[in-house]
């Protein structure tokens, strides 16, 4: 097995995690990851050594999702609640939640609430939040999403603001 193949397989957990948050179910997530690796296998000669293999695989996964799974997904609500309008203005227009109560609620939020809040965001918003958590730079995220770095910056800010708003709603 080639060096690229060995390294690529090391990212299977991260890819599956994004696939799970994109598709919303385990079966589709596994199919998406398997299809992603099949495409990567066929295109590995196009990978440029020295560049970020993880970001390259994320891009293939997202493109595979857009071309295959989004059209035929079983649950039409997954990813359908676009709470972050990409055409809306920047984060400056979002409510600036400043009170100490919000901070206190955030400290008490549990995993299921985080996941539920994240799943209400649009696919692009979810993707940008998850890729940011994976440690990809804005440039690498922009490469995965096929957009400008400035777009990544504004999408991330809006997605996080929407997430905070959702978490405020879930809080007791």
């Amino acid at each position: 097995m080639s060096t690229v193949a060995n390294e690529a397989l090391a990212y299977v957990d991260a890819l599956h995690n994004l696939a799970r948050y994109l598709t919303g179910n385990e079966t589709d997530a596994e199919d998406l990851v398997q299809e992603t690796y099949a495409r990567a296998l066929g295109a590995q000669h196009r990978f440029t050594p020295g560049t970020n293999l993880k970001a390259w695989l994320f891009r293939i996964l997202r493109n595979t999702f857009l071309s295959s799974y989004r059209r035929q997904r079983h649950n039409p609500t997954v990813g359908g609640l676009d709470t972050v309008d990409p055409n809306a203005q920047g984060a400056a227009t979002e409510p600036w939640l400043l009170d100490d109560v919000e901070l206190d609620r955030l400290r008490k939020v549990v995993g299921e609430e985080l996941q539920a809040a994240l799943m209400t965001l649009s696919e692009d918003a979810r993707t940008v939040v998850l890729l940011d958590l994976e440690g990809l730079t804005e440039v690498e995220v922009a490469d995965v999403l096929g957009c400008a770095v400035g777009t990544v910056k504004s999408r991330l800010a809006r997605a996080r603001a929407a997430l905070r708003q959702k978490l405020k709603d879930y809080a007791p």
Partner: protein
Amino acid sequence: MNCDDVRARLLDYQRGRLPAAAHADVRAHLDRCADCRRGDAVEQELTWVLERRLPQHPASLALKRRLATQWAAAPSARPWWSRWRPVLVPAAAAAMVMLVAAPVLYVERTLFRARSERAGMIAEAVNDHLRLVTSLHPLEIESGGLHQVKPWFEGRLDFAPVVAFEGDADYPLKGGAVGFFRDRKAAVFVYARRQHPISLLVFRADGLAWPAGATAGGETMVTAERGFNVMLWRRGELGYALVSDLNAEELQGLAAKLTGRSPS
């Protein structure tokens, strides 16, 4: 920097992605703005809970096994030639080396052989000259002139030596003898320059590795061998070797008279 500016830069500030001056500006604003400090704390808390509490969905072991099998067993989709690259690259490199080295080696070997042959001819000419001058009776026919010497060879050689220069005051013809040059008989004409004997060996030229200049009909450059100067040339079927301890310039003078050319 106002609150909106700080809000737009807060994530970059927390990730350390701002230039030093902008980072200092945000820091200064946060120090004096309680609302923005709370906003900073909330953003930091959101990152903290996302990193630590957001459920992660790692791939199942079954999926990992399937992928490992798929990647190990699947035929490579690389270009057809890349599969053979481990073999093709060394083979191509070897072919390139051969392409470059073979002509070089051939030329080198040919030149080496030619140099060896030429060196052998020169050494042979000097040896023949030495045998003659150290002999008690070097001349088998004393010269009464070229018309005496040339006919003397008849019946003693399997060829007729072609020599037109009869000798003169500068290079008198002393006589002749039959000698050997390598594997063949040679007619030896002995000239002199002052007290220096000069041997002119005439022999069949075929089968010998002649220097390029000699085969083109001209004289070779004077070559020094063990203190003797040697000149070789070829005319038609006959080869000529002129040997003496005479200096090169005077030897060339005799060569010019023998060949009818101007001294080079």
